[in-house]
């Protein structure tokens, strides 16, 4: 069986600082169109017109591709949870916008405050009924 040797390119052939070509420019524009449909939190906030090199283009492309994958994974996970059949389409799509730990704890704190407030209001109401002060 013939073994054909395949030469490797020189190290100098690689250049992440090479200017972006028209194909990569178009790919970034298509990526940006997809990115803008992602939940705001998952968008890159990268201004693609400022991208000049292949290395920069690759980084942008990577981030958007991974964000798309993550958004779909999150939605699929939510769809697969027990009891998720009752959830509406909006809820499943919102699963793609998973809250950060900081926002989760803020949400929990707001819920706690709401519960405390409504308990206080209930106590005031029953005290008013029974002539007692809260």
């Amino acid at each position, binding site marked *: *069986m*013939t073994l054909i040797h395949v030469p490797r390119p020189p190290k100098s052939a690689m250049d992440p600082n*090479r200017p972006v070509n028209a194909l990569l420019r178009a790919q970034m524009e298509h*990526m940006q169109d997809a990115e803008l449909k992602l939940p705001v939190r998952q968008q890159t906030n990268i201004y693609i017109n400022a991208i000049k090199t*292949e290395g920069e283009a690759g980084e942008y492309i990577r981030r958007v591709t991974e964000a798309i994958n993550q958004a779909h994974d999150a939605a699929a996970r939510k769809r697969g949870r027990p009891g998720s059949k009752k959830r509406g389409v909006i809820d499943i799509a919102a699963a793609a916008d998973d809250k950060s730990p900081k926002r989760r704890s803020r949400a929990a704190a707001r819920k706690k405050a709401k519960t405390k407030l409504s308990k206080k209001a209930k106590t005031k109401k029953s005290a008013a009924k029974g002539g007692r002060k809260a």
Partner: protein
Amino acid sequence: MPPGLNNLRHIVVLMMENRSFDHMLGGLTATHPKIDGITPGLSNPDTSPAQNRVPAQPLADFQGQLEPDPDHHFPAVDLQIFGGDTSPNRVASMQGFVKSYFNQRRDLKHSQKIMYYFPPEKLPVLTTLATEFAVFNRWFASIPGPTICNRAFAHYGTSFGRVDMNLLYVNEPFKSIYNRLISARPKRTAKLYYYDTTSSTMEITNLLQHQPELFGTYPQFLSDCRKGTLPDYSFVEPNYNDHDTDSGEEIANDQHPDHDVQAGELYIASVYNAIKQNPDLWQSTALLIVYDEHGGIYDHVVPPACTPDKFTASANATGTGMPFAFDRLGVRVPAILVSPWIPKGTVVDRVFDHASIPATITKFFLGDYSPRSPRETSADIFIEAKTATVDPARNLLSLDKIRTDCPDFDV
């Protein structure tokens, strides 16, 4: 039923970037006369007042020569094919390549490089595959224009009326070949493998953002080959940009100018090796290596007319002042079909374009199917369907016994 077809379970398509047939394989004609490549006398006029003839020469280099990237958008390709003739009854001449490249840098000497081609010994992988398996003398880009539209023909059998690189929305009930397969009953399997997330795919607008589950990475392709879990149909994309990763440098290997052509040779060899190194996969897989378009680089064969698609690109959209009815193919590109059931030195003269890809996959795995675009339904197929009678004149996987003399690449 020929054993090659009977054994066939997987079809893999690897689509590279932006090189013409004459540029990559034209040098083979000298030793393999059935291959329709470079012959003495092929030339283009330059832009000097005397319009000196610039011959095709075996001086192509791996990198650093085609800078700027030769223009391959619709108006430039129109110039390349028609030589600047815009009259109503114009005839294609393939005489506008040097003129077109001159427009980009206004350098007379530099513009001649568009006529350069590779001597075969510089491309050991492509040369070996073309001479060991089946090379297509008449595989053309689907439209005389750029990448996104041409790749669309490979995915959908149409570009939905687009001839440019802008966002391309599917607006007709023509499903991608992947969706046809995974929706079939019984279900078939399909995957697009991109190199990695930094390179990603060119098919973003309709497929990646809606169905990322259709995609895998090149390492997954290699793993699927090793494990024998390759899907029925695989579409493999190269690395479109130079980038660093945690495991080292990843050089662009798509061969799009000005990326290094040798890097692409290594990539093609590694796809071939991955399939061949699993004996079960090797005897049940056909690999098509094809280029999406000619990249603005010289080829001598006039693209033929074809069945019009149901779309028309307006005069504004084409940028030439003339509408386009998708009734003419793009410039010729290298295309090679690899299988151990193909006789050595096969040369195919029938006409194909990228619509032949979904046409072939559909016919082979699904049989009759609609709706499909007019371009796809009229496209020739490169692998015959598994039917009781197979036309021996058309079947490329024609050997009665599997070859044991196929080469290996040392990568």
